[in-house]
């Protein structure tokens, strides 16, 4: 009987056949381009795969991981990525929520405002970086000298501002959708009871849009961590800076020169395609995956807990 499940003419066989037929195109492309590389990638991260020995690499255990953990530039990349992500998560969400509050008011140009604030989202990451490189280094320099992205200490703030300009409009949309679901009568009742605007916001709006905060924080966190295109065109991982003394002490070395906006994604690309250490690059990618998982998971855990408390 079992052989008839796929090839017979019974109804069950027919529906089984179309089950796999309908799944085939998506599933095969997904398996081939995402799942297979993901699994082989785990293996490659334990090999000495380099640009010269592709196909002849050999298993070297945890050597790549050991090398990464003792590499100050990678540690610094992680530090900068985490700091930059924290900065941009905070700035993006404050700006986005503020804008969402503004454009859900009863204004005549409401729809124009929404479309306008959303507009930078249409600009791709690479193009975005060139626009802002020009703004920082050529235009805004009339007022702000030196430019934010010319100094190692402020370059990640410069990057966070750029990403905010692009991404706040999208996150604003999430908050708009949530704010529109806040029941009108609750607000009215509170107003009659004498609550002022801030009290209404704190006691009614915030708890009711708490779920949107969880989603928006998660999206901004992951997007910030994965930022690559904009860094390529905005700073090319520069400018170089002296690493802080406390950071050098962690590695037991004297402070050395590091690239201030070499975020993890940029570091992975450099390792693999400029230095041709593909095995090391892949091990960094696996660590990157784990880091996103840990940070994203922690964030969702804590904001959801807060959701309940509110």
């Amino acid at each position, binding site marked *: 009987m079992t052989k008839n499940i796929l090839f017979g003419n019974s109804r069950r066989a027919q529906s089984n056949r179309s089950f796999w037929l309908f799944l085939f195109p998506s599933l095969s492309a997904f398996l081939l381009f995402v799942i297979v590389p993901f699994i082989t990638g785990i293996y490659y991260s334990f090999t000495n795969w380099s640009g010269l020995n592709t196909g002849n690499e050999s298993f070297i255990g945890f050597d790549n991981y050991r090398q990464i953990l003792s590499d100050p530039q990678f540690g610094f990349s992680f530090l900068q990525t985490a700091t930059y992500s924290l900065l941009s998560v905070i700035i993006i969400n404050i700006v986005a929520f503020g804008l969402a509050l503004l454009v859900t008011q009863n204004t005549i140009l409401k729809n124009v405002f929404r479309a306008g604030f959303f*507009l930078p989202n249409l600009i791709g990451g690479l193009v975005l970086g060139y626009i802002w490189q*020009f703004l920082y280094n050529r235009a805004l320099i009339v007022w702000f000298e030196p430019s934010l992205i010319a100094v190692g200490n402020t370059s990640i703030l410069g990057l966070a501002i750029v990403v905010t300009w692009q991404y706040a409009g999208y996150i604003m949309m999430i908050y708009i959708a949530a704010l529109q679901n806040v029941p009108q009568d609750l*607000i009215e009742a509170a107003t009659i009871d004498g609550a002022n605007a801030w009290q209404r916001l704190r006691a009614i709006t915030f708890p009711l849009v708490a779920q949107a905060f969880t989603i928006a924080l998660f999206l901004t966190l992951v997007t910030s961590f994965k930022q690559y295109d904009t860094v390529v065109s905005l700073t090319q991982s520069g400018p170089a800076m002296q690493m802080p003394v406390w950071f050098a002490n962690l590695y037991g070395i004297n402070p050395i020169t590091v690239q201030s906006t070499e975020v993890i994604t940029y570091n992975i690309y450099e390792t693999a395609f400029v230095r041709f250490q593909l095995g090391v690059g892949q091990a960094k990618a696996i660590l990157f995956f784990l880091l996103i998982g840990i940070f994203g998971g922690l964030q969702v855990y804590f904001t959801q807990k807060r959701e309940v408390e509110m």
Partner: protein
Amino acid sequence: MQKTTNNKQKTNWSVTLKQNNWTIEIISLILLILFFMPIIIVLINVGKADNNAIILDPLGLPQNYFRNFLNNIERILTHRQIRYFSSFGYSLLITTLSLTAIGIFSSMAAWVLVRTKTKYSKAIFFLFLSGLVIPFQVVMLPLVRLLQDITNFTGITMKETVHGIVLAYVGFGAPLSVFMFYGFIKSVPLEIEEAAIIDGCNQRQVFFRVVFPILKPIFVTMLVLNGLWIWNDYLLPVLVLGVKNPVQTLPLSVGVLAGLYTKDWPLILTQVILAAIPLLILFLFVQKHIIKGMTSGAIK
């Protein structure tokens, strides 16, 4: 219709602020202008003859604005390595093909996954979901190697070809799209499909004639989210198509130009405008759909 009136009621959630509406209107307007400053400054500077004009006065409107701007546009449109029209064509072709394929294939997959209750369907759905948390950087190195291996084994060229990158987009687009279609199809009543079966439809007809048209709202969301990503994508085209090869997308052409003329800002900014303009024009026309698509996609 019902929905719009509903929204209207909910939107003015702060009745008491009504008398302040003009203040809010003006604050919003000022913020919007501030938000547009980067674009305005870029638009001022595309009309400058050379970099010296920018260094002298970066924020002033130049003389002969339109002549310089047209001159810069002409330099880009006729440039042999930038190949604006061919890049635009390839971007359009790749985005259209990918969106069509992702739309049809993902909705097909999502539908059978919702409507079939077996241990396979659950497991496969979770497999698709796992793709949502895998960042591209984790698979990119093995992927480049895999594409080469496919070519070596089957003789089908995957790198530097349109079908290669479209297939990759179908794979990478599947998790989010299947997830969105899955959520939507779950809310479609089964009775409609049962009625179609009683009327004599086979499974294929049920999907393409009955279910597919119902999916329109979520299809728009899917098109917007994937369309923005694919049209603007840079890293995957760099890896699959490569730089300065015959098949070149618009973001790749921007990268080529910026590499060739590192300090010629009027030219770079003109190319930036030319690269962004197709999507901006599209946005003006289908703005409502895009915003609606984005919002409903966002809450999912």
